């Protein structure tokens, strides 16, 4: 005899094992796709408003002035989604369509390697080597930007793609080195341990500011933010690798770079800004998962906001200058940051904070 499955149980099952199943939940809801979308709308609004304040103008204001024109962003988004997608005859159609989709998915993937709570029930994967895994997954998506450029079969796209490849090789290294310096300092790859070690308020960003700085600049660079907006520099090569894309496909291209920046910000919030630090995750879904994840998101949002504000201050560097900054300044700095990490490990800076107790 088979037990009857009630609709309640089905609904509960879908919620429990599909939607709130941590790998799916983190990938799609917080801090994944949906949170990234909300953050995107906020950041674009903030970017426009902050830049407008600097530049002595109003920023978006036409729709609902009381909210500072926030709904205008949603209107923009809808307009983008329903624009006609024009596919040039000369493109390599399969890669042309597949590359942006793959880029978006692979940009989101590292989120599944990041813990947002101490409760193992809400971890998407076992967290023992999560830092290494997260950093490794982050380096996957740039190849698809080059694929987009090549599939577009356009001079500007190819020049943009080549620039992207140069920049990625220079700056992924810096990003990886500076983010791994925390592993040197705390003798662990476990992101949960790393966050727990910072719960005293002594954030790693304060202990090793050099690593934070290099990671910040490298993130700006790999996601083509100002002053390193070089692969899609408008006044030289139209839209770089994205020149032949229109409508929603262009939105995906932009979204991939943007999500990548968001994922980097979340990881930086975990490593350098203490993750959910002042808060101690409690029992249950809300106190144990939702609240800490929101705290991490807010910290990441602050990093994003600072990055987008730089648009109002800087112009863009030339590619050789940017590469020079990368190879000649940032790589040595990142190595120095690792050195600081080793020194901290040698002097047991984190030992008294209970890392060892937690690891044992």
């Amino acid at each position: 005899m088979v037990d009857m499955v009630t609709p309640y149980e089905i609904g509960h099952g879908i919620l429990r094992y599909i939607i709130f199943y941590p790998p799916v939940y983190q990938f799609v809801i917080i801090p994944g796709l949906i949170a990234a979308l909300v953050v995107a709308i906020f950041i674009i609004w903030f970017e426009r408003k902050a830049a407008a304040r600097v530049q002595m103008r109003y920023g978006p204001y036409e729709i609902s002035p009381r909210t500072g024109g926030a709904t205008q962003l949603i209107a923009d988004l809808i307009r983008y989604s329903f624009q006609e997608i024009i596919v040039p005859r000369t493109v390599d159609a399969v890669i042309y369509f597949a590359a942006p989709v793959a880029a978006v998915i692979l940009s989101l993937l590292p989120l599944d390697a990041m813990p947002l709570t101490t409760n193992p029930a809400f971890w998407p994967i076992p967290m023992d080597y999560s830092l290494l895994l997260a950093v490794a997954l982050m380096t996957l998506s740039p190849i698809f930007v080059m694929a987009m450029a090549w599939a577009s079969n356009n001079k500007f796209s190819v020049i943009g793609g080549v620039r992207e490849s140069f920049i990625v090789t220079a700056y992924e290294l810096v990003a990886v080195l500076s983010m791994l310096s925390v592993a040197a300092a705390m003798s662990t790859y476990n992101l949960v341990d790393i966050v727990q070690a910072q719960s005293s308020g002594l954030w790693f960003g304060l202990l090793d500011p050099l690593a934070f700085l290099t990671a910040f600049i490298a993130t700006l660079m790999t996601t083509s933010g100002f002053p390193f907006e070089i692969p899609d520099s408008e006044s030289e090569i139209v839209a770089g690798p994205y020149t032949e894309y229109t409508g929603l496909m262009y939105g995906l291209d932009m979204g991939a770079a943007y999500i990548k920046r968001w994922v980097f910000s979340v990881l930086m919030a975990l490593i350098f800004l203490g993750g959910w630090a002042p808060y101690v995750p409690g029992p249950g879904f809300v106190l144990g998962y939702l609240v800490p994840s929101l705290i991490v998101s807010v910290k990441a949002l602050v990093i994003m906001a600072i990055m987008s504000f730089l648009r109002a201050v800087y112009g863009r560097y030339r590619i050789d200058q940017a590469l020079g900054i990368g190879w000649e300044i940032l790589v040595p700095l990142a190595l120095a940051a690792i050195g600081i990490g080793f020194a901290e490990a040698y002097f047991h800076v984190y030992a008294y904070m209970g890392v060892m107790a937690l690891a044992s």
Partner: protein
Amino acid sequence: MGTEGSQVQSLPGMQVHPLKKNLYEVAIGPAHPGSGHMRILVRVEGDVMVEVDPDIGFVHRTMEKLSEGRDWMKNIPLFERMAILDACNVTLPYVEAVEKLLDVDPPERAKYLRTLLCEINRVASHLYGFGIFGVFLGHSTLYMWAFGDREVFVELAERLTGARLTHTYPMFGGVRRDMPDDFGQHVRKAAAYMRRRLDEYAKIFLLNPNIRSRLEGVGVVSKSRAVELGLAGPNVRASGVRYDVRLAEPYEAYDRVDFEIPIYEEGDSLARAWQRVEEIKQSLSIMEQAVDWLEKHPREGFVHEKFWKTAPPIYKKVYAGEVPYAGKYRVKMIPLYASLKVPAGRSFARTESAHGEITYYVESDGKDVPYRVRLVSGSYRNVIAFKYVMPGHRLADLPAIYGSFDYFPPEWDR
């Protein structure tokens, strides 16, 4: 890439340049995100430009030919279209050349009024150039600031002439109208504001390490090279050549106002940007001096007696302030201009516009339209520098050099 397998068609008038291996041709333009319509064909080897070919004639509008079919007066609005942001400076030599043929010398007051508008235009044009420069380097703040502050000078011009951009202000034998009573205080306020703002520009843009690294040592034009290429305007002065028409051959009231010609020796893109900042400062000083003079002297004659005596009596009452018509002193255009015939002859005049020296050669055969007008503008003389300065630089330097030359496409091709 691209041409493989496809056949190169030969069309009449089409030139086919075979490209060397590893050479890549990129067309900058025809609609560029940072500027007007223009085209520059660039051949790059990797990221380095090896050949730069500004396509002169790409947006040619037959302005010289059009002028041969229009009344003498109607040519002023036509030539304004060449650089509407600098309307007074680019039409003034035409007016001066025709005045030479008519043998009239504008009254002193008109000369000062022309000088005043020329300098307002120069400031507005330099600010426009800065805005475009900002876009080229991805610096949106400078773009917004420069265009926002340019509005101050556009509004000044509107108060003086009634039009924001295409003023058609200098007329044969004078100007179109006198300045309003309160114009002086507006000019002084604008000048004080702009001096303060220029310091802020320097902070955010010219002293910004990011921008400095983009501009320093980029697009260097040495003194001898600048002379050899025949550059004009602020660009030649930024290379250390003390040449300015206002100095070399003073026109209007420039021999009676006190100003300096700033010089920079470096000749790179940064020097050209600083050159414009210094020139704006000088222009502000000239504006203040002109306004001081105009306020001190009585309102007598903004146009030559020869034309003024043909004006209807009501005009004279309006100008005397007895009859208000659309505000004080606002005299309509004197009807004689519409049927003006210029005695046969040839004449030549030049002024210093914001983009460089602009020269007009005017020939009349005594009819109501010119026989021939020939003009050479500042941007036309500057554009050739691209061909010689840019190769060897990276493609990303093209916008930096382009912007630093403050080069204006509609003025290049008339």
